[in-house]
């Protein structure tokens, strides 16, 4: 399809600006452009058709099954949107006095209470904008805590299955990385962990269940090992969808947890946000949480900025409020049955795993949690078909591909997370597609290398995209058509 710039005709407009009734501002000549910006010039019908057509090229959870591992692409209930549109929430201004925002503050306070209960911890800050910022906030809290105690601890231990954000957050927080290996059952290798802890250990960052979709069988021994060395335990809540109402990070021994509201508690995501990454902590870390804190005094709710030990603000105002409303609405609709959400997510994942093992390698042969990793290693060895080929071919069957080549400890990895909101028929159709692709790999491997064939664009040249990136429209190559 043509780009909007290619549809441009000089003089066409989709809107007419009102006549100016005030004097024009004087802009210093050095700040003025020498020529007007080259904006696309189109009439409204063309504008509407252009963007409507673009929207039909999109794939989202509203158009199909989206089993992107570790991303928890679940259905976003429309009731959430009704809650967001309540005028008292929708029309609120972030500078409004607490007196005039009692309902909003109460919702935030209640959400904090729920998240403290779900994580098994004492205090919550809703402020971080996403999981990655939750990680950084959590690590800055750990740093502030040790500085306050006069301890010099700089090392954070991270397993080789960790999300890439974990080592990035450690580096951004000015701390040092120490790797710990994974054992043959997919757990953290305890011997290696015991060899890595020392008086320099600030803590551990762990996702449980891990990115392999496995609940660590030695979880208490792991957190005990860190605590005995004087460190703190950070729980990456990316996979919290597996355990809500069943087991709690606080009970596993974790001191700091971030929660991906947009994943576990439903908020449209995948296009860049807005996300929500609240953190929950043990009581002894509460004084270091970001300001302002949402507090309750009887029937009165407030924003409290008086926390002398706080690490400060990590985001503007009180956090991504729209996300809070949707997550609160989502959780309240489950109520005390929240564990059914996680149970169904785990059941769906195990149902898929059981059927896919016929045709794909299973590197860690265990009951999985809400997601699992299979490998295309045998397909590659026997037929030259890689995880990338399988993923691209799935698009021809109408499914979004799973996460591939992650975690790095599994060769030719395909990481699949169905979530709880998919019906058995959808899961069965996905199984049929995956088995059909494995069959195609044996019978007609060359066709798989060309997939996808039914999509607006075919196989993209990822190597060229990295080596010769074109990041903007090249006006130089497209002279203005008069």
């Amino acid at each position, binding site marked *: 399809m043509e780009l909007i710039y290619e549809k441009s005709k000089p003089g066409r407009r989709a809107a007419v600006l009102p006549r100016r009734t005030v004097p024009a501002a004087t802009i210093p000549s050095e700040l003025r452009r020498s020529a007007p910006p080259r904006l696309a010039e189109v009439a409204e019908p063309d504008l509407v058709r252009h963007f409507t057509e673009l929207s039909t090229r999109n794939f989202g959870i509203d158009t199909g099954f989206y089993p992107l591992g570790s991303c928890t692409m679940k259905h976003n209930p429309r009731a959430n949107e009704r809650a967001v549109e309540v005028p008292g929430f929708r029309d609120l201004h972030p500078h409004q006095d607490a007196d005039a925002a009692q309902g909003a503050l109460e919702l935030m306070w209640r959400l904090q209470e729920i998240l403290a209960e779900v994580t098994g911890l004492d205090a919550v800050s809703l402020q971080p904008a996403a999981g990655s910022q939750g990680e950084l906030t959590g690590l800055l809290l750990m740093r502030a805590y040790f500085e306050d105690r006069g301890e010099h601890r700089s090392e954070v231990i991270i397993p080789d299955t960790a999300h890439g954000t974990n080592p990035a957050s450690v580096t951004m927080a000015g701390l040092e990385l120490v790797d710990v290996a994974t054992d043959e059952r997919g757990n953290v290798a305890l011997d290696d962990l015991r060899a890595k802890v020392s008086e320099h250990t600030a803590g551990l960052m762990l996702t449980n269940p891990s990115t392999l979709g496995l609940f660590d069988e030695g979880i208490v021994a792991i957190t005990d090992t860190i605590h005995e060395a004087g460190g703190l335990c950070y729980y990456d809540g990316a996979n919290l969808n597996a355990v809500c109402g069943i087991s709690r990070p606080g009970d596993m021994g974790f001191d700091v947890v971030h929660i991906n509201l947009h994943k576990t508690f439903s908020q449209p995501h995948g296009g860049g946000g807005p996300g929500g990454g609240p953190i929950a902590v043990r009581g002894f870390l509460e004084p270091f949480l970001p300001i302002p804190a949402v507090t309750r005094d009887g029937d009165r709710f407030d924003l409290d900025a008086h926390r002398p030990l706080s690490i400060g603000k990590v985001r503007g105002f009180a956090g991504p409020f729209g996300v809070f409303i949707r997550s609160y609405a989502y959780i309240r609709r489950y109520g005390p049955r929240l564990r059914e959400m996680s149970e169904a997510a785990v059941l769906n994942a195990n149902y898929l795993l059981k059927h896919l093992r016929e045709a794909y390698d299973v590197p860690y042969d265990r009951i999985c949690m809400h997601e699992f990793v299979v490998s295309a290693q045998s397909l590659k*060895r026997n037929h030259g078909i890689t995880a990338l080929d399988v993923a691209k071919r799935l698009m021809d069957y109408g499914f979004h591909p799973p996460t591939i*080549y*992650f975690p*790095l400890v599994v*060769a030719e990895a395909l990481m699949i997370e169905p979530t709880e909101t998919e019906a058995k028929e959808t899961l069965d159709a996905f199984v049929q597609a995956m088995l059909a692709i494995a069959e195609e790999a044996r019978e007609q491997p060359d066709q798989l290398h060309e997939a996808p064939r039914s999509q607006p664009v075919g196989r993209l040249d*990822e*190597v060229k*995209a*990295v*080596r010769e990136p074109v990041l903007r429209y090249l006006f130089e190559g497209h002279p203005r058509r008069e």
Partner: protein
Amino acid sequence: MSRGESYPDDLRYNRDHDWARLAGDEAVLGITWHAQDALGEVVHYEPPTVGGRVVAGESYGEVESVKAVSDLIAPLSGVVLAVNSEVMNAPETINADPYGAGWLIRIALSDPAEVGSLLDAAAYRSFLAEQ
């Protein structure tokens, strides 16, 4: 074995899929056919600085493919004498010729006895077969 797969007998290997070609008290380092195959097409090579130290078992640089960024794990310790600037300009050389033009650095060995802990080609092939 897949097409093009080879593990020359004159090299020594570590379990992180790096090789060393010994010449007196120097060694040339690179990554194995298996490593470049697992990575896929390499799009960037981040070398160490000439004159810097590399330590056996620790990272001395990075290679990046469209799939992942991977640490280069030094099989031997020493001081960097040279880095392969041609690979910096054309990282795909690592895929095309991992044992020849795709070499990564040359070092002066600081502890030649470390060679004893490396695998020969037969042992590395058995190690790969177990993976």
